[in-house]
Protein backbone atom coordinates (compact mmCIF):
# COMPACT_ATOMS: atom_id res chain seq x y z
CA UNK A 1 0.00 0.00 0.00
CA UNK A 2 1.26 3.49 -0.78
CA UNK A 3 1.33 5.90 2.12
CA UNK A 4 2.19 9.52 1.65
CA UNK A 5 1.55 12.97 3.08
CA UNK A 6 -1.73 14.50 1.94
CA UNK A 7 -3.10 18.03 2.23
CA UNK A 8 -5.54 18.70 -0.63
CA UNK A 9 -8.35 16.44 0.52
CA UNK A 10 -7.80 16.32 4.30
CA UNK A 11 -10.48 18.89 5.10
CA UNK A 12 -12.88 17.34 2.62
CA UNK A 13 -13.04 14.28 4.87
CA UNK A 14 -14.60 16.27 7.73
CA UNK A 15 -18.38 16.42 8.10
CA UNK A 16 -19.79 19.70 6.69
CA UNK A 17 -16.34 20.61 5.38
CA UNK A 18 -17.96 23.12 3.02
CA UNK A 19 -19.16 25.40 5.83
CA UNK A 20 -17.16 28.32 7.19
CA UNK A 21 -17.43 27.04 10.74
CA UNK A 22 -15.83 23.68 9.99
CA UNK A 23 -13.32 25.12 7.54
CA UNK A 24 -12.20 27.79 9.99
CA UNK A 25 -11.81 25.33 12.84
CA UNK A 26 -9.57 23.40 10.43
CA UNK A 27 -7.41 26.46 9.78
CA UNK A 28 -9.03 28.02 6.71
CA UNK A 29 -7.94 31.61 6.02
CA UNK A 30 -4.86 31.11 8.20
CA UNK A 31 -2.57 31.50 5.19
CA UNK A 32 -4.35 34.68 4.10
CA UNK A 33 -4.02 36.08 7.61
CA UNK A 34 -0.34 35.13 7.63
CA UNK A 35 0.24 37.02 4.38
CA UNK A 36 -1.34 40.12 5.88
CA UNK A 37 0.22 39.83 9.35
CA UNK A 38 3.77 39.17 8.20
CA UNK A 39 3.54 42.20 5.91
CA UNK A 40 4.46 40.24 2.81
CA UNK A 41 4.39 42.37 -0.32
CA UNK A 42 2.46 41.17 -3.38
CA UNK A 43 5.83 40.55 -5.04
CA UNK A 44 6.90 38.36 -2.09
CA UNK A 45 3.82 36.19 -2.59
CA UNK A 46 4.49 35.78 -6.32
CA UNK A 47 8.09 34.91 -5.47
CA UNK A 48 7.02 32.23 -2.97
CA UNK A 49 4.67 30.62 -5.50
CA UNK A 50 7.45 30.73 -8.10
CA UNK A 51 9.86 29.13 -5.64
CA UNK A 52 7.37 26.34 -4.89
CA UNK A 53 7.54 25.21 -8.51
CA UNK A 54 3.74 24.75 -8.61
CA UNK A 55 2.62 23.84 -12.14
CA UNK A 56 -0.88 24.42 -13.47
CA UNK A 57 -3.27 21.53 -13.00
CA UNK A 58 -5.58 22.52 -15.87
CA UNK A 59 -3.73 20.49 -18.50
CA UNK A 60 -0.69 22.36 -19.76
CA UNK A 61 1.42 22.26 -16.58
CA UNK A 62 2.56 25.87 -16.93
CA UNK A 63 4.39 27.25 -13.84
CA UNK A 64 1.80 29.23 -11.86
CA UNK A 65 4.15 31.78 -10.25
CA UNK A 66 5.70 32.56 -13.62
CA UNK A 67 2.25 33.09 -15.13
CA UNK A 68 1.37 35.49 -12.33
CA UNK A 69 4.56 37.46 -12.96
CA UNK A 70 3.41 38.16 -16.54
CA UNK A 71 0.74 40.55 -15.24
CA UNK A 72 1.82 44.07 -16.18
CA UNK A 73 3.42 46.38 -13.63
CA UNK A 74 0.65 48.16 -11.76
CA UNK A 75 2.51 51.47 -11.70
CA UNK A 76 2.89 51.76 -15.45
CA UNK A 77 -0.45 50.11 -16.28
CA UNK A 78 -3.45 51.32 -14.32
CA UNK A 79 -6.10 49.16 -16.03
CA UNK A 80 -8.51 46.95 -14.09
CA UNK A 81 -6.98 43.53 -13.34
CA UNK A 82 -8.80 40.21 -13.29
CA UNK A 83 -8.38 36.52 -12.68
CA UNK A 84 -10.68 33.88 -14.11
CA UNK A 85 -10.69 30.60 -12.24
CA UNK A 86 -11.27 27.81 -14.69
CA UNK A 87 -13.93 25.45 -13.31
CA UNK A 88 -15.26 24.43 -16.71
CA UNK A 89 -13.91 20.90 -16.15
CA UNK A 90 -15.12 19.19 -19.32
CA UNK A 91 -12.11 17.13 -20.39
CA UNK A 92 -13.42 13.56 -20.56
CA UNK A 93 -12.12 11.54 -17.61
CA UNK A 94 -11.62 14.61 -15.46
CA UNK A 95 -13.75 15.24 -12.35
CA UNK A 96 -11.44 16.50 -9.64
CA UNK A 97 -12.33 20.19 -9.51
CA UNK A 98 -15.93 19.39 -8.68
CA UNK A 99 -14.76 17.62 -5.51
CA UNK A 100 -12.82 20.71 -4.43
CA UNK A 101 -15.69 23.12 -5.21
CA UNK A 102 -18.22 20.93 -3.50
CA UNK A 103 -16.28 19.82 -0.41
CA UNK A 104 -13.88 22.67 0.35
CA UNK A 105 -14.98 25.92 -1.30
CA UNK A 106 -13.37 28.05 1.43
CA UNK A 107 -9.90 26.82 0.49
CA UNK A 108 -10.52 27.90 -3.09
CA UNK A 109 -11.75 31.30 -1.91
CA UNK A 110 -8.64 31.67 0.24
CA UNK A 111 -6.45 30.78 -2.75
CA UNK A 112 -8.29 33.32 -4.91
CA UNK A 113 -7.79 36.06 -2.34
CA UNK A 114 -4.07 35.32 -1.98
CA UNK A 115 -3.75 35.34 -5.78
CA UNK A 116 -5.73 38.58 -5.90
CA UNK A 117 -3.40 40.17 -3.37
CA UNK A 118 -0.31 38.92 -5.21
CA UNK A 119 -1.43 40.19 -8.61
CA UNK A 120 -3.24 43.28 -7.25
CA UNK A 121 -6.51 42.14 -8.79
CA UNK A 122 -9.76 44.05 -8.69
CA UNK A 123 -12.01 41.06 -9.18
CA UNK A 124 -12.00 37.29 -9.64
CA UNK A 125 -14.56 35.35 -11.69
CA UNK A 126 -15.06 31.65 -11.09
CA UNK A 127 -16.34 30.15 -14.35
CA UNK A 128 -18.18 26.93 -13.47
CA UNK A 129 -19.58 24.58 -16.10
CA UNK A 130 -23.35 24.97 -16.17
CA UNK A 131 -24.08 21.37 -15.24
CA UNK A 132 -22.26 21.65 -11.89
CA UNK A 133 -25.24 22.86 -9.87
CA UNK A 134 -24.27 21.59 -6.43
CA UNK A 135 -20.62 22.70 -6.71
CA UNK A 136 -21.82 26.13 -7.89
CA UNK A 137 -24.30 26.47 -5.05
CA UNK A 138 -21.72 25.38 -2.47
CA UNK A 139 -19.25 27.97 -3.77
CA UNK A 140 -21.89 30.71 -3.78
CA UNK A 141 -22.96 29.85 -0.23
CA UNK A 142 -19.32 29.90 0.89
CA UNK A 143 -18.82 33.32 -0.71
CA UNK A 144 -21.88 34.64 1.11
CA UNK A 145 -20.55 33.29 4.40
CA UNK A 146 -17.12 34.76 3.76
CA UNK A 147 -18.59 38.17 2.96
CA UNK A 148 -20.65 38.18 6.16
CA UNK A 149 -17.49 37.32 8.10
CA UNK A 150 -15.50 40.21 6.60
CA UNK A 151 -13.30 37.91 4.48
CA UNK A 152 -14.56 39.15 1.12
CA UNK A 153 -15.25 42.57 -0.38
CA UNK A 154 -13.91 45.73 1.24
CA UNK A 155 -11.03 45.76 3.70
CA UNK A 156 -10.61 41.99 3.95
CA UNK A 157 -9.80 40.88 7.54
CA UNK A 158 -9.04 44.52 8.35
CA UNK A 159 -5.99 44.47 6.05
CA UNK A 160 -6.97 47.39 3.86
CA UNK A 161 -7.00 45.02 0.87
CA UNK A 162 -10.29 44.72 -1.06
CA UNK A 163 -11.40 42.26 -3.73
CA UNK A 164 -14.57 40.77 -5.15
CA UNK A 165 -15.11 37.17 -6.21
CA UNK A 166 -18.03 36.45 -8.52
CA UNK A 167 -19.53 33.16 -9.65
CA UNK A 168 -20.33 32.70 -13.34
CA UNK A 169 -22.24 29.86 -14.93
CA UNK A 170 -21.34 28.37 -18.32
CA UNK A 171 -23.73 26.42 -20.51
CA UNK A 172 -22.12 23.16 -21.53
CA UNK A 173 -19.41 23.78 -24.11
CA UNK A 174 -16.00 22.08 -23.74
CA UNK A 175 -14.28 24.82 -25.71
CA UNK A 176 -15.11 27.32 -22.95
CA UNK A 177 -12.45 25.54 -20.86
CA UNK A 178 -9.81 26.85 -23.28
CA UNK A 179 -8.69 30.04 -21.58
CA UNK A 180 -9.55 32.52 -24.33
CA UNK A 181 -12.78 30.72 -25.19
CA UNK A 182 -13.60 31.03 -21.51
CA UNK A 183 -13.06 34.78 -21.60
CA UNK A 184 -15.27 35.23 -24.67
CA UNK A 185 -17.96 33.15 -23.00
CA UNK A 186 -17.70 35.11 -19.76
CA UNK A 187 -18.24 38.28 -21.79
CA UNK A 188 -21.55 36.81 -22.97
CA UNK A 189 -20.46 35.64 -26.42
CA UNK A 190 -19.99 32.37 -28.27
CA UNK A 191 -16.98 30.57 -26.82
CA UNK A 192 -14.68 31.20 -29.77
CA UNK A 193 -11.02 31.09 -28.74
CA UNK A 194 -8.96 34.16 -29.58
CA UNK A 195 -5.73 34.07 -31.56
CA UNK A 196 -2.68 34.49 -29.31
CA UNK A 197 -0.83 36.84 -28.99
CA UNK A 198 -2.06 39.04 -27.43
CA UNK A 199 -1.92 36.89 -24.29
CA UNK A 200 -4.47 37.25 -21.48
CA UNK A 201 -1.99 39.05 -19.19
CA UNK A 202 -2.01 41.98 -21.61
CA UNK A 203 -5.44 41.60 -23.24
CA UNK A 204 -7.85 39.43 -21.28
CA UNK A 205 -11.37 39.91 -19.98
CA UNK A 206 -12.85 43.05 -21.51
CA UNK A 207 -9.38 43.79 -22.88
CA UNK A 208 -7.87 44.13 -19.40
CA UNK A 209 -4.91 42.25 -17.87
CA UNK A 210 -6.16 38.79 -16.85
CA UNK A 211 -4.76 35.55 -15.49
CA UNK A 212 -6.56 32.25 -16.02
CA UNK A 213 -5.88 29.41 -13.59
CA UNK A 214 -7.39 26.03 -12.93
CA UNK A 215 -9.28 25.38 -9.67
CA UNK A 216 -6.75 22.85 -8.38
CA UNK A 217 -3.81 25.19 -9.12
CA UNK A 218 -5.35 27.96 -7.00
CA UNK A 219 -6.33 25.42 -4.35
CA UNK A 220 -2.63 24.65 -3.75
CA UNK A 221 -1.77 28.28 -3.04
CA UNK A 222 -2.92 28.58 0.62
CA UNK A 223 -0.88 25.50 1.53
CA UNK A 224 2.23 26.93 -0.13
CA UNK A 225 1.88 30.24 1.71
CA UNK A 226 1.04 28.58 5.00
CA UNK A 227 3.77 25.94 5.04
CA UNK A 228 6.30 27.47 2.66
CA UNK A 229 7.70 26.68 -0.76
CA UNK A 230 10.39 24.46 0.77
CA UNK A 231 7.77 22.21 2.36
CA UNK A 232 5.90 22.03 -0.97
CA UNK A 233 9.07 20.86 -2.68
CA UNK A 234 9.42 17.94 -0.27
CA UNK A 235 6.44 16.42 -2.14
CA UNK A 236 6.49 15.31 -5.75
CA UNK A 237 9.51 15.60 -8.01
CA UNK A 238 12.12 18.28 -8.67
CA UNK A 239 10.37 19.54 -11.82
CA UNK A 240 6.79 18.74 -10.73
CA UNK A 241 6.48 19.39 -7.00
CA UNK A 242 3.42 18.82 -4.82
CA UNK A 243 0.50 16.45 -4.79
CA UNK A 244 -2.21 16.22 -7.43
CA UNK A 245 -5.70 14.83 -7.62
CA UNK A 246 -5.77 11.76 -9.80
CA UNK A 247 -9.23 10.89 -11.02
CA UNK A 248 -9.07 7.30 -12.19
CA UNK A 249 -11.99 5.95 -14.21
CA UNK A 250 -12.87 3.10 -16.53
CA UNK A 251 -12.06 -0.55 -15.92
CA UNK A 252 -10.69 -0.53 -12.36
CA UNK A 253 -12.20 -2.00 -9.20
CA UNK A 254 -12.35 1.30 -7.29
CA UNK A 255 -12.60 4.32 -9.57
CA UNK A 256 -12.23 7.55 -7.64
CA UNK A 257 -10.40 10.80 -7.04
CA UNK A 258 -7.18 10.09 -5.14
CA UNK A 259 -4.61 12.52 -3.79
CA UNK A 260 -1.10 11.39 -4.70
CA UNK A 261 2.35 12.95 -5.03
CA UNK A 262 3.53 13.82 -8.52
CA UNK A 263 5.98 11.20 -9.70
CA UNK A 264 4.09 8.24 -8.21
CA UNK A 265 4.06 5.35 -10.65
CA UNK A 266 0.88 4.88 -12.64
CA UNK A 267 0.97 1.25 -11.53
CA UNK A 268 0.74 2.21 -7.85
CA UNK A 269 -2.39 4.24 -8.59
CA UNK A 270 -4.04 1.47 -10.60
CA UNK A 271 -3.05 -1.46 -8.41
CA UNK A 272 -2.88 -0.08 -4.87
CA UNK A 273 -5.39 2.76 -4.79
CA UNK A 274 -7.89 1.76 -7.44
CA UNK A 275 -7.80 -1.95 -6.56
CA UNK A 276 -6.45 -3.16 -9.90
CA UNK A 277 -8.22 -3.96 -13.14
CA UNK A 278 -11.83 -4.99 -12.56
CA UNK A 279 -13.22 -8.50 -12.85
CA UNK A 280 -9.75 -10.01 -12.52
CA UNK A 281 -8.91 -9.00 -16.07
CA UNK A 282 -5.68 -7.54 -17.33
CA UNK A 283 -4.82 -4.10 -18.61
CA UNK A 284 -4.80 -3.26 -22.31
CA UNK A 285 -4.34 0.50 -22.50
CA UNK A 286 -4.50 3.67 -20.43
CA UNK A 287 -4.82 7.40 -20.93
CA UNK A 288 -2.53 9.18 -18.46
CA UNK A 289 -4.30 12.52 -18.15
CA UNK A 290 -7.69 12.85 -19.80
CA UNK A 291 -8.97 12.15 -23.29
CA UNK A 292 -6.62 14.62 -24.97
CA UNK A 293 -3.48 12.75 -23.93
CA UNK A 294 -2.13 9.95 -26.07
CA UNK A 295 -3.17 6.46 -25.01
CA UNK A 296 -0.35 4.18 -23.76
CA UNK A 297 -0.02 0.38 -23.79
CA UNK A 298 -0.04 -1.83 -20.68
CA UNK A 299 3.72 -2.36 -20.66
CA UNK A 300 4.24 1.36 -19.94
CA UNK A 301 2.32 1.32 -16.64
CA UNK A 302 5.49 1.86 -14.62
CA UNK A 303 5.72 5.40 -15.99
CA UNK A 304 5.93 7.94 -13.15
CA UNK A 305 2.99 10.35 -13.16
CA UNK A 306 4.69 13.70 -13.53
CA UNK A 307 4.92 16.11 -16.45
CA UNK A 308 8.42 15.22 -17.66
CA UNK A 309 8.11 11.43 -17.26
CA UNK A 310 4.78 11.13 -19.05
CA UNK A 311 6.12 13.34 -21.82
CA UNK A 312 9.19 11.12 -22.11
CA UNK A 313 6.82 8.16 -22.47
CA UNK A 314 5.37 9.91 -25.54
CA UNK A 315 2.19 11.26 -24.01
CA UNK A 316 1.15 14.12 -21.71
CA UNK A 317 0.37 14.50 -18.02
CA UNK A 318 -2.69 16.61 -18.92
CA UNK A 319 -5.23 16.80 -16.10
CA UNK A 320 -3.87 13.69 -14.34
CA UNK A 321 -7.13 11.88 -15.06
CA UNK A 322 -6.30 8.25 -15.85
CA UNK A 323 -8.73 6.32 -18.03
CA UNK A 324 -8.24 2.55 -17.91
CA UNK A 325 -9.13 0.04 -20.66
CA UNK A 326 -9.11 -3.68 -19.87
CA UNK A 327 -8.18 -6.48 -22.27
CA UNK A 328 -11.74 -6.75 -23.60
CA UNK A 329 -12.04 -3.06 -24.53
CA UNK A 330 -11.77 -1.89 -28.11
CA UNK A 331 -9.26 0.90 -28.63
CA UNK A 332 -10.94 1.66 -31.95
CA UNK A 333 -14.28 2.14 -30.25
CA UNK A 334 -12.71 4.51 -27.74
CA UNK A 335 -11.15 6.37 -30.66
CA UNK A 336 -14.64 6.72 -32.15
CA UNK A 337 -16.18 7.96 -28.89
CA UNK A 338 -13.48 10.60 -28.62
CA UNK A 339 -13.54 11.55 -32.31
CA UNK A 340 -17.28 12.14 -32.00
CA UNK A 341 -16.68 14.27 -28.91
CA UNK A 342 -14.10 16.53 -30.56
CA UNK A 343 -16.27 16.86 -33.67
CA UNK A 344 -19.17 17.92 -31.44
CA UNK A 345 -17.04 20.42 -29.50
CA UNK A 346 -15.00 22.05 -32.29
CA UNK A 347 -16.06 25.69 -32.46
CA UNK A 348 -15.57 25.69 -36.22
CA UNK A 349 -13.28 28.71 -36.64
CA UNK A 350 -10.34 26.77 -38.12
CA UNK A 351 -10.82 24.56 -41.16
CA UNK A 352 -8.25 21.94 -40.06
CA UNK A 353 -10.17 21.38 -36.85
CA UNK A 354 -13.73 21.81 -38.16
CA UNK A 355 -13.22 19.49 -41.14
CA UNK A 356 -10.56 17.27 -39.57
CA UNK A 357 -12.62 16.28 -36.54
CA UNK A 358 -15.57 15.44 -38.76
CA UNK A 359 -13.46 13.32 -41.10
CA UNK A 360 -11.82 11.45 -38.24
CA UNK A 361 -15.21 10.61 -36.81
CA UNK A 362 -16.64 9.47 -40.14
CA UNK A 363 -13.67 7.29 -41.01
CA UNK A 364 -13.48 5.52 -37.64
CA UNK A 365 -17.25 5.13 -37.71
CA UNK A 366 -17.17 3.40 -41.09
CA UNK A 367 -14.26 1.22 -40.00
CA UNK A 368 -16.20 0.00 -36.98
CA UNK A 369 -19.31 -0.67 -39.02
CA UNK A 370 -17.38 -2.93 -41.36
CA UNK A 371 -17.18 -0.39 -44.19
CA UNK A 372 -13.49 0.42 -43.78
CA UNK A 373 -11.43 0.88 -46.92
CA UNK A 374 -7.85 -0.07 -47.70
CA UNK A 375 -5.74 2.95 -46.82
CA UNK A 376 -8.05 4.20 -44.07
CA UNK A 377 -5.42 3.85 -41.35
CA UNK A 378 -3.01 5.91 -43.44
CA UNK A 379 -5.78 8.42 -44.11
CA UNK A 380 -6.43 8.80 -40.38
CA UNK A 381 -2.71 9.34 -39.84
CA UNK A 382 -2.38 11.91 -42.60
CA UNK A 383 -5.47 13.79 -41.50
CA UNK A 384 -4.31 13.88 -37.90
CA UNK A 385 -0.89 15.12 -38.96
CA UNK A 386 -2.64 17.92 -40.83
CA UNK A 387 -4.36 19.02 -37.62
CA UNK A 388 -1.30 19.30 -35.36
CA UNK A 389 0.94 20.79 -34.02
CA UNK A 390 0.14 24.44 -33.61
CA UNK A 391 -1.76 24.85 -36.87
CA UNK A 392 -4.93 26.27 -35.37
CA UNK A 393 -6.18 29.06 -33.09
CA UNK A 394 -6.39 26.78 -30.07
CA UNK A 395 -5.24 23.33 -28.99
CA UNK A 396 -8.55 21.50 -29.47
CA UNK A 397 -7.38 20.43 -32.91
CA UNK A 398 -4.23 18.94 -31.35
CA UNK A 399 -6.34 17.37 -28.61
CA UNK A 400 -8.32 15.51 -31.27
CA UNK A 401 -5.34 14.52 -33.41
CA UNK A 402 -2.78 13.47 -30.81
CA UNK A 403 -4.79 10.65 -29.17
CA UNK A 404 -5.70 9.34 -32.64
CA UNK A 405 -2.03 9.20 -33.65
CA UNK A 406 -1.12 7.54 -30.34
CA UNK A 407 -3.88 4.95 -30.70
CA UNK A 408 -2.67 4.07 -34.19
CA UNK A 409 0.96 3.99 -33.08
CA UNK A 410 0.38 1.54 -30.23
CA UNK A 411 -2.63 -0.40 -31.53
CA UNK A 412 -2.25 -0.30 -35.30
CA UNK A 413 -3.23 -3.92 -35.77
CA UNK A 414 -6.57 -3.29 -34.06
CA UNK A 415 -7.35 -0.56 -36.58
CA UNK A 416 -6.18 -2.70 -39.47
CA UNK A 417 -8.35 -5.58 -38.31
CA UNK A 418 -11.37 -3.34 -38.98
CA UNK A 419 -10.62 -3.22 -42.70
CA UNK A 420 -12.19 -6.11 -44.60
CA UNK A 421 -9.63 -7.94 -46.70
CA UNK A 422 -10.16 -7.80 -50.43
CA UNK A 423 -11.70 -11.27 -50.49
CA UNK A 424 -14.19 -10.39 -47.73
CA UNK A 425 -15.01 -7.07 -49.33
CA UNK A 426 -15.97 -8.82 -52.58
CA UNK A 427 -18.44 -11.14 -50.87
Amino acid sequence: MTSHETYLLNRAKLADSHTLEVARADGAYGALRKVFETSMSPEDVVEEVKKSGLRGRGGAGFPTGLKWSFMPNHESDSRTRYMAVNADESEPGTCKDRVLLREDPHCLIEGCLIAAFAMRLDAVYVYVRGEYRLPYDRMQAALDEARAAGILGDNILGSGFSCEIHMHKGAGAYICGEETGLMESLEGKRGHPRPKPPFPASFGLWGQPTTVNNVESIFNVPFILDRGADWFRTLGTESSPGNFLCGISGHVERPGVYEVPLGISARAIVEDLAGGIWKGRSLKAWFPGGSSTGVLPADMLDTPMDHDSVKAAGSMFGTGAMIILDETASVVRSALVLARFYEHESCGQCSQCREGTEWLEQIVDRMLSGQGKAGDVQLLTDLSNGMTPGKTICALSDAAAIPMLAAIKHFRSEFEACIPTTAEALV
Partner: protein
Amino acid sequence: MALTAALKAEFDELCKKYPERRAGLIPALHRCQEELGGWISPETITDCAEYFKLEPVEVYSVASFYPMFFLSPVGQHVVSVCRNISCDLRGAGEIINAAKEHTGAACGESSEDGHFYLEQVECQGACTNAPMMVVDGKYHEDLEPADVARILGETR
Protein backbone atom coordinates in the same frame (compact mmCIF):
# COMPACT_ATOMS: atom_id res chain seq x y z
CA MET B 1 -43.09 40.46 -23.19
CA ALA B 2 -42.20 37.09 -21.69
CA LEU B 3 -39.70 38.47 -19.18
CA THR B 4 -41.44 39.01 -15.88
CA ALA B 5 -40.71 41.98 -13.63
CA ALA B 6 -39.17 39.56 -11.14
CA LEU B 7 -36.75 38.17 -13.73
CA LYS B 8 -35.81 41.68 -14.84
CA ALA B 9 -35.10 42.68 -11.26
CA GLU B 10 -32.96 39.57 -10.90
CA PHE B 11 -31.04 40.44 -14.06
CA ASP B 12 -30.46 44.00 -12.83
CA GLU B 13 -28.77 42.49 -9.79
CA LEU B 14 -26.89 39.88 -11.87
CA CYS B 15 -25.42 42.43 -14.26
CA LYS B 16 -23.87 44.39 -11.40
CA LYS B 17 -21.21 41.66 -11.20
CA TYR B 18 -19.77 42.71 -14.54
CA PRO B 19 -18.32 45.88 -16.07
CA GLU B 20 -20.41 45.22 -19.18
CA ARG B 21 -24.05 44.24 -19.11
CA ARG B 22 -23.74 41.66 -21.87
CA ALA B 23 -21.73 39.34 -19.60
CA GLY B 24 -24.97 38.56 -17.79
CA LEU B 25 -26.52 37.10 -20.94
CA ILE B 26 -25.67 33.41 -20.49
CA PRO B 27 -26.65 33.22 -16.80
CA ALA B 28 -29.82 35.11 -17.73
CA LEU B 29 -30.65 32.63 -20.49
CA HIS B 30 -30.34 29.85 -17.90
CA ARG B 31 -32.91 31.60 -15.72
CA CYS B 32 -35.22 32.17 -18.69
CA GLN B 33 -35.07 28.51 -19.61
CA GLU B 34 -35.83 27.55 -15.99
CA GLU B 35 -38.72 29.97 -15.57
CA LEU B 36 -40.21 30.30 -19.04
CA GLY B 37 -41.25 26.86 -20.21
CA GLY B 38 -38.00 24.89 -20.31
CA TRP B 39 -36.72 26.32 -23.57
CA ILE B 40 -35.52 29.54 -25.16
CA SER B 41 -38.47 30.68 -27.27
CA PRO B 42 -38.29 33.32 -30.02
CA GLU B 43 -40.11 35.65 -27.62
CA THR B 44 -37.45 35.08 -24.94
CA ILE B 45 -34.79 35.88 -27.52
CA THR B 46 -36.46 39.16 -28.51
CA ASP B 47 -37.01 40.13 -24.89
CA CYS B 48 -33.44 39.32 -23.87
CA ALA B 49 -32.19 41.29 -26.87
CA GLU B 50 -34.17 44.27 -25.69
CA TYR B 51 -33.00 43.88 -22.11
CA PHE B 52 -29.33 43.44 -23.03
CA LYS B 53 -29.46 46.09 -25.80
CA LEU B 54 -28.41 43.56 -28.45
CA GLU B 55 -29.90 42.47 -31.77
CA PRO B 56 -32.09 39.36 -31.53
CA VAL B 57 -29.71 37.58 -33.91
CA GLU B 58 -26.83 38.17 -31.48
CA VAL B 59 -28.80 36.56 -28.65
CA TYR B 60 -29.76 33.71 -30.98
CA SER B 61 -26.15 33.17 -32.03
CA VAL B 62 -25.13 32.85 -28.37
CA ALA B 63 -28.06 30.66 -27.32
CA SER B 64 -27.49 28.30 -30.25
CA PHE B 65 -23.79 27.85 -29.41
CA TYR B 66 -24.38 26.28 -26.01
CA PRO B 67 -25.69 22.70 -25.73
CA MET B 68 -27.54 23.39 -22.48
CA PHE B 69 -30.01 25.72 -24.20
CA PHE B 70 -33.00 24.27 -26.05
CA LEU B 71 -34.25 26.28 -28.98
CA SER B 72 -37.42 24.26 -29.38
CA PRO B 73 -39.82 22.91 -26.75
CA VAL B 74 -38.78 19.77 -24.90
CA GLY B 75 -40.60 17.28 -22.65
CA GLN B 76 -41.28 18.25 -19.06
CA HIS B 77 -38.39 16.21 -17.59
CA VAL B 78 -35.01 16.34 -19.27
CA VAL B 79 -33.01 13.10 -19.13
CA SER B 80 -29.37 13.40 -20.22
CA VAL B 81 -27.28 10.25 -20.41
CA CYS B 82 -23.51 10.61 -20.70
CA ARG B 83 -22.00 8.80 -23.69
CA ASN B 84 -18.35 9.77 -23.27
CA ILE B 85 -15.41 7.47 -22.69
CA SER B 86 -15.48 6.65 -18.97
CA CYS B 87 -19.23 6.06 -19.04
CA ASP B 88 -18.99 4.14 -22.33
CA LEU B 89 -16.42 1.80 -20.76
CA ARG B 90 -18.73 1.08 -17.85
CA GLY B 91 -21.98 0.41 -19.65
CA ALA B 92 -23.46 3.72 -20.78
CA GLY B 93 -24.96 1.82 -23.71
CA GLU B 94 -27.18 -0.20 -21.39
CA ILE B 95 -28.18 2.93 -19.51
CA ILE B 96 -29.26 4.67 -22.68
CA ASN B 97 -31.22 1.60 -23.76
CA ALA B 98 -32.99 1.43 -20.40
CA ALA B 99 -33.81 5.13 -20.65
CA LYS B 100 -35.16 4.71 -24.18
CA GLU B 101 -37.30 1.84 -23.05
CA HIS B 102 -38.71 3.64 -20.01
CA THR B 103 -39.38 6.96 -21.70
CA GLY B 104 -40.42 5.60 -25.08
CA ALA B 105 -38.42 8.42 -26.61
CA ALA B 106 -35.55 8.26 -29.06
CA CYS B 107 -32.39 10.26 -28.33
CA GLY B 108 -32.89 13.93 -29.08
CA GLU B 109 -36.66 13.57 -28.85
CA SER B 110 -39.50 13.94 -26.38
CA SER B 111 -41.87 11.14 -25.39
CA GLU B 112 -45.30 11.24 -26.99
CA ASP B 113 -47.02 12.36 -23.80
CA GLY B 114 -44.48 15.17 -23.42
CA HIS B 115 -43.39 13.87 -20.04
CA PHE B 116 -39.74 13.19 -20.96
CA TYR B 117 -37.09 14.57 -23.23
CA LEU B 118 -34.17 12.17 -23.77
CA GLU B 119 -30.69 13.11 -24.96
CA GLN B 120 -27.16 11.75 -24.98
CA VAL B 121 -24.57 14.21 -23.74
CA GLU B 122 -20.80 14.46 -23.60
CA CYS B 123 -18.76 14.09 -20.40
CA GLN B 124 -20.50 15.63 -17.39
CA GLY B 125 -17.46 15.54 -15.12
CA ALA B 126 -18.55 12.58 -13.03
CA CYS B 127 -16.32 10.02 -14.74
CA THR B 128 -15.11 8.25 -11.60
CA ASN B 129 -18.78 7.47 -10.87
CA ALA B 130 -19.67 6.17 -14.32
CA PRO B 131 -22.07 5.45 -15.82
CA MET B 132 -24.22 8.45 -15.04
CA MET B 133 -27.20 10.46 -16.15
CA VAL B 134 -28.67 13.83 -15.27
CA VAL B 135 -32.40 14.22 -14.66
CA ASP B 136 -33.71 17.78 -14.45
CA GLY B 137 -30.25 19.00 -13.49
CA LYS B 138 -29.66 16.39 -10.78
CA TYR B 139 -26.77 13.95 -11.14
CA HIS B 140 -27.40 10.22 -10.75
CA GLU B 141 -24.14 8.29 -10.63
CA ASP B 142 -22.77 4.74 -10.35
CA LEU B 143 -25.84 3.55 -12.23
CA GLU B 144 -26.97 0.01 -12.91
CA PRO B 145 -29.43 -0.41 -15.80
CA ALA B 146 -32.12 -1.39 -13.26
CA ASP B 147 -31.78 1.99 -11.48
CA VAL B 148 -33.02 3.87 -14.53
CA ALA B 149 -36.69 2.91 -14.33
CA ARG B 150 -36.80 3.67 -10.60
CA ILE B 151 -35.19 7.12 -10.98
CA LEU B 152 -37.31 8.08 -13.96
CA GLY B 153 -40.41 6.70 -12.23
CA GLU B 154 -39.88 9.24 -9.45
CA THR B 155 -40.80 12.03 -11.88
CA ARG B 156 -44.36 10.71 -12.20
